[in-house]
């Protein structure tokens, strides 16, 4: 899961949790607040009534029929006041919730009961307020709050998501920078523009690391190059000496074969050293990329070169050019070598009567594709993985090979930003696809 999605999800969940908690305690809190409000109102009313009684006397409140009690409900039964005479020993001052049956309707009231003594007579004053409206109001408030919270959560979810997306953008760019490189040489050393300190640190650390890796690579290349270079002179001495011995023609046949065998061994050593040198030179960009040529022409040349051997093995080479392209800014010799290696390997690894197909085509991104398919030995997954590793590839060798030809192919492809895709199945054959940039 992407980091921004994770953060957004966490944000959303934590907000939902807060909202849920709020909604859980809301009824309780509003209830308390409402009751306190009502209680205050009731106390105010009581004081008002008491001051009225002291002003006009108690008589107007006592109903004539009963003489000793008074009750008044307002028309909506929301509030009532009652005054009743009580026994002298009653002394109360309390507020409680009481259910009253009024006109066949049970209504919850908050009732303040207060005992007061007027002219030596004890009365109980009750001031009540219906809770029905309070409950209604509470429900309304909760509904509004739920809507409001939902609205806030949705809005903040999107703004949070956008914000984390923007904040994390430099991270995406850093990842892309790392994705795009085939070797530390191609690492984009330009700084990522961000105000986030951590990303700046990460970027700087990666750039530093790449620099160090690049230096190590360069050192390795230099060593390979120098060793290879230095080996040339002793190789040259040995080769000349052995050739001289062979050329004098004064050897018995046994010695002659021995010398020839030594020359063959020496040739392998020379191949190896030269191949390493070639790779080191390509990797340190000592080759110019200034040629432009038609790809099919190069393929024709390779087919011509490998033709006699293929013919000798009764292998059919089929060319299918669906597309031709002039490739620019490449090194012709290297491209030739890259494709030649693969086609030549196909010839080596395909049995008598086999078939090799060479195609040029274009993909939907207008990239040139060169596909080489054979129905030869094929490779296992492990063999494909080791295919381009120097010296690891022992599958394609037949005698003369150094196990480095495919590494050269890969190096040349990387040098030109050409992708190679390999599909193979043991016993069924191998398919190489070169995707030109």
């Amino acid at each position, binding site marked *: 899961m992407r980091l921004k999605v994770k953060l957004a999800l966490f944000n959303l969940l934590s907000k939902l949790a807060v909202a849920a908690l709020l909604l859980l305690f809301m009824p309780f809190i509003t209830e308390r607040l409402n009751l306190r409000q009502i209680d205050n109102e009731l106390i105010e009313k009581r004081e008002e009534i008491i001051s009225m009684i002291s002003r006009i006397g108690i008589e107007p409140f006592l109903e004539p029929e009963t003489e000793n009690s008074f009750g008044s409900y307002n028309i909506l039964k929301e509030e009532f006041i009652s005054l009743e005479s009580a026994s002298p020993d009653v002394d109360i001052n309390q507020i409680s919730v009481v259910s009253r049956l009024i006109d066949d309707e049970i209504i919850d009231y908050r009732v303040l009961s207060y005992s007061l003594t007027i002219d030596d007579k004890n009365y109980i004053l009750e001031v009540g307020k219906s809770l029905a409206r309070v409950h209604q109001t509470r429900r309304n408030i909760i509904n509004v709050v739920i809507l409001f919270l939902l609205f806030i959560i949705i809005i903040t979810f999107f703004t949070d998501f956008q914000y984390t997306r923007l904040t994390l953008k430099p991270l995406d760019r850093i990842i892309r920078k790392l994705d795009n490189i085939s070797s530390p040489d191609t690492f984009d050393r330009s700084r990522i523009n961000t105000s986030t300190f951590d990303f700046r640190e990460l970027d700087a650390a990666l750039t530093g690391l790449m620099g160090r890796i690049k230096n190590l690579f360069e050192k390795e290349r230099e060593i390979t190059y120098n060793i290879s270079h*230095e080996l040339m002179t002793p*190789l040259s001495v040995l080769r000349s000496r052995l050739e001289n011995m*062979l050329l004098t023609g004064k050897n018995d046949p046994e010695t002659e074969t021995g010398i020839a065998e030594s020359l063959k061994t020496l040739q392998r050593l020379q*191949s190896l050293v030269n191949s390493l*040198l070639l790779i080191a*030179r390509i990797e340190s960009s000592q080759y110019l990329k200034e040629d432009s040529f038609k790809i099919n022409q190069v393929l024709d040349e390779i087919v011509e070169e490998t033709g006699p*051997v293929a013919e000798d093995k009764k292998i059919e080479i089929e060319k299918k050019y669906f597309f031709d392209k002039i490739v620019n800014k490449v090194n012709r*010799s290297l491209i030739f*070598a890259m494709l*030649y290696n693969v086609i030549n390997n196909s010839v080596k690894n395909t049995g008598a009567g086999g078939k090799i197909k060479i195609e040029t085509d274009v993909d939907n991104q207008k990239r040139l594709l060169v596909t080489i398919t054979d129905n030869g030995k094929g490779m296992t997954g492990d063999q494909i993985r080791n295919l381009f590793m120097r010296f690891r590839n022992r599958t394609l060798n037949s005698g003369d090979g150094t196990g480095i030809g495919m590494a050269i192919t890969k190096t040349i492809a990387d040098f030109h930003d050409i992708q190679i895709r390999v599909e193979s199945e043991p016993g069924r054959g191998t398919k190489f696809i070169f995707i030109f940039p």
Partner: protein
Amino acid sequence: MNVLIVEDEKNLAGEISSFLSRENFLVEVTHTGREASEKIAVNLYDFVLLDLGLPDYNGLDLIKEAKKLNSGASFIIITARGAVEDKVKGLDLGADDYLAKPFALVELLSRINAVARRKFKVPDDDLELGEFIIKISSRRLLCKGNEVDLTKKEFDLLLYLVLNHGKVLTRQQLYEHIWGNILDDQYDSNFIDVHIKNLRKKLNAHAPSPWLETVRGVGYRVTTGADN
């Protein structure tokens, strides 16, 4: 012909020297650039084999000096492989050819001969081999007046063997000469065998070719009447 070998690796200089002496060249060897410079100033050489990697001298300066002196010597540069800039610079300064180490001695000889033919304007004679005639200038092979149709590679192979007649050439030497490109290290001995096989087939269709011999375990050789 006089050849001066300028090579600081004494063993290599010795091998080249003994090879060229056997090929009837008059050979002098020097291991330092300073001495080479003196020798070029005093003596007349037809060829200078020059290793550019001299410890005491920039090899390219020797070419400049020689040109200034109008010495008339042809330069063949020898360097360890990979030094493309040296090759280009050397050829710019008027060197006649370039060989990368390690090279085949027969290849060196064939380069010297090629330069010599150009230099002394030797006409390319027709070569006779049994009933075959090689017309070098027009790159054709005739047998009893009939054209033998060879591919470019087959012709090159035949010509190289014929020009080095009497010598056994290994498959590597043949491969390097004919396919001398960036990939000459991806060499496959089978290539030479297939081409020789095809070549023989074409030759034998016209006339027997016993002069093209396979030397078991070593390589191929063309023997002409002059070799016996």
